[in-house]
């Protein structure tokens, strides 16, 4: 570039000669030079802007392109940091208190058909009908040759069946992976486990959902993939549950009962070690819920929590314990039991005449309705209601299976003084055996309410105190005497000091009134009575046995022997060593003079 001088002599000299100002020429030149500089600077700035624009364009294009790519591509698990074992795609297992499997998963296959891809629908239909005898060949052929593009044939098939279908070799028959719920122990603890079925179904996967029992109650936990590796641990003991089911099923058959239920519960922790309801079902092949008839006739009916019945005289001990707790009586106080006790039109009678007066202990031992009603009169309606509410008799049990919420106790609409008296001996208030177990556990553990639970606990789980320690101890002595000298004499198991109370209540007719010859026989026990560890409730539905020249239905002849057999069978499995009961210390009376 040629640099123009600011004061070129060739122009300055003639300008001086002409008398012009040479400064003007210089300024003119400076101006021109600035103009050129400006043009150059602008061009450079424009160039830089262009570069910047291209750079930004590229950057935005890259970001946008990546976003589009991510939006359209299939999601893939990052390979480098996948943890592998922590997340399992399976539903969590259910195990018993020792970690033995109660419910697990099994890989299997489903079978579906895509008729448009079929080569020989006739042969396929014939082959399928041969493999699955319950399929209708004609119907299949109609489906295969009709307009349908897709149909399910089987939800679950065994590996052998899969191979057989594979051997048919039709490309229109396809398999999808399925995860099915398996209960390896069959009928064992069926009512607790409930069952599972498929929810939303796709070709490549299906959702497994719980339909009853703990499977439904803890569905969210079991389905959470993060919990795949840690199973749900129940308080049940597989061995004891199996032994209980066996003994109870035998007893139910022997006593010609329609149904039976038992609840075995740890009195300190509230853990339910075994809970049986018979008749039972196989959760692997859960029957359909009945649509008509009495729901309690269905094997799905869980008598232990849904079977809400008046449990009869087993309630008497609550009245006696409360009366002792309130200081109204002690176990030797004499109560007038002359009967019948009239209340308006209603008459309270005893099973037979026990004389004119009995001590409180004897009232429980002989199971006197009149005596218990007299105690309830002393206690009063308000205090009785408070006490039973504290024992959890007014609400469904907090037992964690889905059906437990349906076990709402039936209370009298109008809790009159007459209701107070009848409820004191177990009539007029209907509860489930699980309620009764919780109530007896309160007496057994020294007066604390414990809520029955199906989950394994560590250590005692005492709730609020309901009874004083001494009242609970007095009640336990009474219960022990029921077995040694009262209505439950068949309940004695050497070495285990069984204490308990029988109860036989007439079954209500569906249209009101009571059946004369249909009973609910209950035996509520705790063992060993001097230091109870477990509570066992046995309830039989409509038992009857011909013995000693007449038909017997009462609990003393039906539920009690079964409970005794159960304790003899189960207590060793619980690790309880038979021991000699500590005797009553001889009372030393101080005399002077």
């Amino acid at each position, binding site marked *: 570039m040629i640099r123009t001088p600011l004061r070129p002599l060739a122009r300055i000299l003639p300008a001086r000669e002409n008398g012009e100002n040479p400064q003007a020429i210089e300024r003119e030149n400076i101006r021109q030079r600035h103009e050129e500089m400006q043009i150059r600077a602008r061009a450079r700035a424009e160039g830089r802007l262009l570069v910047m624009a291209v750079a930004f364009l590229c950057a935005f294009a890259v970001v946008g392109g990546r976003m589009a790519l991510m939006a359209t591509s299939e999601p893939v698990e990052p390979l480098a940091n996948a943890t592998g074992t922590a997340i399992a795609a399976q539903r969590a297992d259910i195990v018993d208190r020792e970690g033995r499997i109660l419910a697990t998963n099994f890989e299997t296959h489903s079978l579906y058909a895509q008729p448009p891809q079929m080569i020989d629908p006739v042969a396929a239909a014939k082959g399928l009908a041969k493999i699955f005898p319950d399929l209708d060949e004609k119907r299949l052929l109609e489906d295969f040759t009709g307009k349908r593009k897709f149909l399910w044939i089987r939800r679950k098939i065994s590996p052998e069946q899969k191979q057989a279908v594979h051997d048919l070799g039709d490309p229109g028959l396809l398999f999808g992976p399925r995860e099915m719920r398996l209960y390896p122990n069959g009928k064992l603890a069926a009512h607790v486990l409930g069952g599972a079925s498929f929810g939303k179904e796709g070709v490549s996967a299906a959702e497994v959902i719980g339909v009853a029992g703990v499977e439904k109650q803890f569905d969210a936990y079991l389905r959470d993939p993060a919990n795949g590796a840690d199973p749900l641990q129940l308080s049940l003991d*597989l061995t004891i549950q199996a032994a209980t089911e066996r003994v109870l099923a035998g007893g139910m058959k022997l006593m010609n009962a329609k149904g039976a239920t038992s609840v075995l519960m740890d009195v300190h922790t509230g853990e339910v070690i075994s809970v049986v309801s018979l008749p039972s079902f196989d959760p692997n092949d859960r029957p359909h819920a009945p649509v008509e008839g009495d729901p309690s006739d269905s094997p799905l009916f869980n008598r232990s929590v849904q079977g809400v019945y008046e449990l009869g005289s087993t309630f008497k001990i609550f009245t006696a314990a409360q009366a002792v707790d309130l200081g109204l009586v002690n176990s030797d106080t004499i109560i007038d039991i002359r009967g019948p006790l009239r209340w308006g039109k209603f008459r309270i009678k005893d099973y037979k005449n026990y004389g004119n007066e009995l001590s409180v202990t004897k009232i429980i031992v002989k199971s006197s309705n009149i005596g218990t009603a007299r105690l309830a009169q002393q206690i009063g309606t308000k205090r009785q209601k408070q006490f039973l509410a504290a024992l959890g008799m007014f609400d469904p049990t907090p037992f964690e299976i889905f059906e437990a919420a349906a076990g709402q106790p039936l209370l009298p609409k109008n809790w009159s003084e007459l209701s107070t008296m009848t409820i004191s001996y177990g009539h007029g208030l209907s509860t489930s055996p699980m309620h009764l177990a919780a109530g007896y556990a309160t007496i057994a553990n020294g007066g604390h309410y414990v809520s029955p639970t199906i989950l394994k606990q560590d250590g005692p789980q005492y709730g609020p105190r309901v009874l004083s320690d001494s009242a609970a101890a007095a009640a336990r002595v009474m219960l022990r005497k029921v077995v040694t000298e009262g209505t439950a004499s068949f309940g004695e198991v050497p070495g285990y000091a069984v204490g308990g109370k029988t109860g036989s209540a007439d079954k209500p007719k569906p249209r009101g009134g009571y059946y004369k010859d249909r009973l609910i026989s209950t035996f509520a026990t705790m063992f060993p009575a001097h230091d109870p560890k477990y509570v066992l409730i046995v309830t039989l539905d409509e038992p009857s046995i011909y013995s000693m020249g007449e038909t017997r239905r009462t609990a003393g002849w039906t539920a009690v022997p079964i409970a005794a057999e159960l304790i*003899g069978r189960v207590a060793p499995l619980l690790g309880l060593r038979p021991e000699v009961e500590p005797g009553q210390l001889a009372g030393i009376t101080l005399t002077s003079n």
Partner: protein
Amino acid sequence: MRSLLYVLTALSVFGLAFWAYRENYATQQVLSDTQRLQRDIGAAQVRLSVLRAEWAYLNRPDRLAELADINFSRLGLLPLRPDQFGRVDEVSFPQPEEILLPITNAVDVSTMEEQQP
């Protein structure tokens, strides 16, 4: 000087490119190894859960009770009853083994004479 710098820069670019190329392939190799391992772990877990289910099925109480019944003559298994509890002091103390004196100065004897007629 400047050309040396250019040459060095170019060489380092070559070097880095080669390193990146190698790392890329090494990473892909490791990823595919991981994937294979995870597939193996998954398959092993499935197999394990099947085996566990089978174990639980074979050990179900019904079957064990049946087996105990079938093999009663051989094993004599019965349910546990309360009278089977024992106490340590009911177990007799094991008898001390008889201590035999070591044989020393053995004398050879023969019964040949008696056997002869």
